[in-house]
């Protein structure tokens, strides 16, 4: 039941009336008034004016302790609390004579702590900082006061004498968490003043004592002002979410250092007109970052970048060479120490975490970090293919482009050895890595290499050009090689290893799938990233897929052949029209060499003859991959083989579809076997396949059989 307005007013009048009896016993008026206040506190809360009046009762010395405490505890604000009320409360606490006893002071501070976020004018309250601070000497007040001061502290409040005071207190009382808490906020503002290390592992410095009380305030606030968001969740924190399992703290040695500011090399007083540097600890949001971007001070251990999204943005933007070197030295040292010198299973979670952070960082700056690559080269030599697999493979997808011989020696060769020793699933994973690496080369690395090379040439002619414009975050000597050649040779390498792998694994469906995925990516490079290369898979991959039992694999390889055909046409045109770099032209020529085009043509001829013209024993005038001789074949197999054995409806992948269409037709025409239908109704079959998402078959024959495209329309 809500307390009616007049009754509440009356109750307030009773407790504030100087004429009211002090004692509670036999004082019905006061008792009733207190009940009303408590009830109202539970149900409705008080307005700021009411609180302003009642605070005097709660803090004053007129009534007995129990009365004051009851009033104080029921002071639940339903809206803002006036700053003036807080000032009054603090004045009461500071009262020497007739002030509340220490126990009540503790409660007043606790109340202030609870309502601090609701105070309407915090600037005014902040003026009291100087009055509140000396009271931390009172041991019972200290924990709550520290928390309150923690909330109130602003940069100007951090002065040396307060830090010293806290240091002496810590010396006397031991490192109480509330003192450290207050010190931590001081340290975040003026790190060079505070030399005490603050343990970061401790998340909560302050104990939550008044849980119920706080809960009551929250309910009332929500009821009266549902759309009002509390101050607590106003700041959008950019924090990494950690999903990794957290082992016992003591056993985990943190690898990535915390973000802390310089303590030794504290920045000297800024010169006139210069902005005061801002420690990175104070940058919490993107807005902070943008607002202060000209005066940010990097943390003392730059490796903290790995744990902070914002710092990653900043370092990506920054062209400070020493920052790069600091990070490089740290990474090189830590990775060597952790992964090459210690057993793998020691501090496992932290190691995985470190690698994941590096991955995230590399994704953000969209390039590989040279020292990490260096580590990968060394690690691959001793890798068992299992430790940290996910992360190591992830890092491999971010390699920078280099001459193929270099990459082969440092990465592909060691990886190849693990590849062939491992299970089919690992092979698939490696193919996925290669696919991503190819995409990375095509999308980022090739272009980056070209522009860096250009820049370094310009710098040779114009030494005043600063290297700040370098697209590389990390300076590396630019080697003179053609990225296209690397891509071409890389694809050939993958083609070779996947041929062997497919044979080893007996065309395992997963492996076929991943091999095709790689070549699908390769064949779309021209369209997606403007890479002028024709990247055709090796003949044995083509054959395996062309005669696969799986319709989807069959059409995917047709699709790849189609794209490669289109690429060749485009490249031939490009070669004749535009004037290209010699090295680029050479790479293009290499990719559409006579030999390769012949190989591709041979596949097309074979498919057309065997599947379309129903003749596997076709004449040898055109280049062809397999030549079948009828008598030999008969001798080998012992049965007579018809020329139409691979005709489209007999194709192992399509025979099911053919069967179904025949059934349909039979019901309509009552006609003979599939071959008859085939002769007359090729188009119908192709359309049927198209309807079943196998349109590539139609495209393929439309493309490669002269005159078909027109006639089928």
């Amino acid at each position, binding site marked *: 039941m809500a307390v009616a307005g007049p009754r509440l007013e009356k109750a307030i009048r009773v407790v504030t009336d100087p004429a009211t009896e002090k004692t509670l016993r036999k004082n019905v008026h006061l008792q009733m008034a207190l009940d009303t206040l408590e009830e109202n506190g539970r149900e409705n809360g008080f307005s700021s004016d009411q609180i302003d009046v009642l605070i005097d009762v709660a803090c004053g010395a007129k009534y007995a302790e129990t009365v004051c405490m009851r009033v104080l505890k029921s002071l639940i604000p339903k809206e803002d609390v006036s700053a003036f009320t807080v000032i009054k409360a603090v004045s009461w606490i500071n009262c020497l004579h007739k002030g509340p006893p220490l126990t009540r002071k503790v409660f007043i501070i606790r109340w202030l702590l609870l309502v601090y976020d609701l105070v309407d004018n915090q600037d005014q309250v902040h003026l009291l900082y100087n009055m509140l601070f000396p009271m931390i000497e009172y041991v019972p007040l200290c924990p709550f006061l520290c928390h309150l001061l923690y909330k109130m502290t602003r940069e100007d409040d951090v002065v040396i004498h307060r830090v010293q005071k806290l240091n002496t207190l810590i010396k006397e009382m031991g490192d109480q968490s509330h003192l450290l808490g207050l010190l931590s906020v001081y340290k975040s503002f003026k790190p060079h003043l505070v*030399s005490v*290390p603050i343990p970061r592992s401790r998340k909560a410095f302050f104990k939550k004592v008044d849980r119920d009380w706080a809960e009551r305030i929250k309910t009332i606030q929500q009821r009266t002002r549902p759309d009002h968001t509390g101050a607590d969740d106003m700041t959008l924190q950019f924090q990494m979410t950690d999903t990794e399992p957290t082992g016992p703290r003591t056993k985990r040695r943190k690898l990535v250092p915390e973000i802390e500011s310089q303590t*030794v090399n504290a920045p000297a007083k800024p010169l006139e007109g210069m902005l005061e540097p801002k420690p990175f600890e104070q940058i919490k949001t993107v807005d902070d970052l943008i607002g202060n971007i000209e005066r940010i001070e990097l943390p003392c251990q730059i490796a903290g970048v790995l744990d902070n999204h914002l710092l990653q943005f900043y370092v990506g933007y920054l062209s400070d060479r*020493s920052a790069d070197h600091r990070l490089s*030295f740290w990474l090189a040292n830590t990775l060597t120490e952790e992964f090459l010198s210690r057993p793998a299973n020691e501090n496992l979670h932290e190691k995985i975490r470190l690698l994941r952070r590096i991955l995230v960082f590399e994704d953000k700056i969209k390039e590989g970090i040279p020292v990490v690559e260096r*580590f990968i080269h060394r690690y691959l*030599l001793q890798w068992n293919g299992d430790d940290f697999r996910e992360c190591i493979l992830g890092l491999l997808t971010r390699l920078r482009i280099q001459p193929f011989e270099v990459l082969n020696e440092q990465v592909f060769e060691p990886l190849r050895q693990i590849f062939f020793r491992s299970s089919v699933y690992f092979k698939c994973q490696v193919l996925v890595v290669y696919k991503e690496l190819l995409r990375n080369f095509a999308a980022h690395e090739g272009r980056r290499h070209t522009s860096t090379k250009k820049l370094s040439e310009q710098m040779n002619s114009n030494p005043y050009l600063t290297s700040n414009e370098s697209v590389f975050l990390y300076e590396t000597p630019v080697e003179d090689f053609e990225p296209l050649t690397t891509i071409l040779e890389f694809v050939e390498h993958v083609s070779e290893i996947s041929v062997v792998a497919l044979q080893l694994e007996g065309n395992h469906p997963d492996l076929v799938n991943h091999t095709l995925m790689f070549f699908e990516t390769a064949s779309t490079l021209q369209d997606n990233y403007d890479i002028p290369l024709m990247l055709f898979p090796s003949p044995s991959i083509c054959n395996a897929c062309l005669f696969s039992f799986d319709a989807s694999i069959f059409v995917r390889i047709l699709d790849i052949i189609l794209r490669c055909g289109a690429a060749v046409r485009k490249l031939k045109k490009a070669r004749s029209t535009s004037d290209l770099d010699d090295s680029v032209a050479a790479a293009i020529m290499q990719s559409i060499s006579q030999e390769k085009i012949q190989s591709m043509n041979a596949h097309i001829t074979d498919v057309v003859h065997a599947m379309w013209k129903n003749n596997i024993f076709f004449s040898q005038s055109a280049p062809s991959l397999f030549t079948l001789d009828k008598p030999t074949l008969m001798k080998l197999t012992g049965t007579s083989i018809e020329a139409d054995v691979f005709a489209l409806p007999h194709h192992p992948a399509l025979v099911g579809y053919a069967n179904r269409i025949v059934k349909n037709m039979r019901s309509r025409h009552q006609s003979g076997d599939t071959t008859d239908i085939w002769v007359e109704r090729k188009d119908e079959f192709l359309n049927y396949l198209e309807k079943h998402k196998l349109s590539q078959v139609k495209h393929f024959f439309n493309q490669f059989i002269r005159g078909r495209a027109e006639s089928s329309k």
Partner: protein
Amino acid sequence: MSAREARFVTPEAQVITNKRFSIGGTLLKTPWTRRHTPYAKTPKSRRIAGPEKSAALDVSLSSAERRDDLAQEEETLSGLVNKTWRVYQMTPLYNFKYGKLKEYSRSLSKYLQAQIQKGIELDPNAEVSSDVKITEVKGLNMAEEDNVALKVTVRSKQKAANGEKKVLLTMLLCCTDALRECKPTCPDSFTILPLMLSNGNMTMGNHINNWFKTSFDCSVQKMVFNSIELAWMVSMWASLVPERSAKSVELTYKVPDEVEGLDRITYTIDPHDCKAIWESVHDESKDMAEADEVSEFVLSLEKHFDVVFKTHLSSLFLTRVGTSVAYVSTEGKLKLFTKKHIHKVLRYLTELALEKIQAGTGT
């Protein structure tokens, strides 16, 4: 001598100093290449000693100053000998200024005190306060481009019975004449002091390392030496035998865990014999030691052991070497014996530290 340790001293007569004995390439290769880590590029040759101390360093000094310097150098060097040092490698210090040493001392002192307040016992005698000093040290530099070495001393404030303050920890950061061969590429804001020696309270040492890490964004790491690096040490220092009180050369090999009842084999050789063998394989006209020479030298020692005791030392790990110059163990402990050759030892260790740093950064 523990029961689990076999100790062999070669009879003098059996030591073969004849050059003809040295074995050919084929035999050498198998164990030697196997012990190479696959990625570390060990240089083919190393300078045994640096050039004689560059005269350019002293030119500008008056004779009085020079005398002062010599006295200081003498003091530094005598502070180094006959102590066991823990060896660390350190990546370049960022934003380190020699002019601010006093400030650094204060900061480090504060830092250590804060650690004590946190309840970490830095000193077994529970002395609360200590006196920290970071100073420049003269006499460890050999080349012009060497950065001046630093010394961190922590003394307890309580005086001992003889009225002197007890030294709790000494740390030495130096860079001795190896920058020419392998200087890491980094901007001028970095100070390269790759080698750190530490003697004293380990807990405190670790805290000081942390202070260096946070103050100058560097990484400090214990240095370990593999068999090859130790073999180089024996070879390079084999000929440095003092006339008086020469210590015998001692090689300690670790026996695999599978072998029961024996942990390690210590192989002691007369230093003069050792010197003779080295001189038989080494080309005296050069001040460089070649990789071939080193492998030949060590393998001839091991071969001799094999002939006498039928044990292939070459298949075991060399874990500790001792010469008249210094004792070095695989886990990075160092003890220096003669002042005369300190620079040579530090020079090699600096070079190794730089190489290890470079192996990671790849520059």
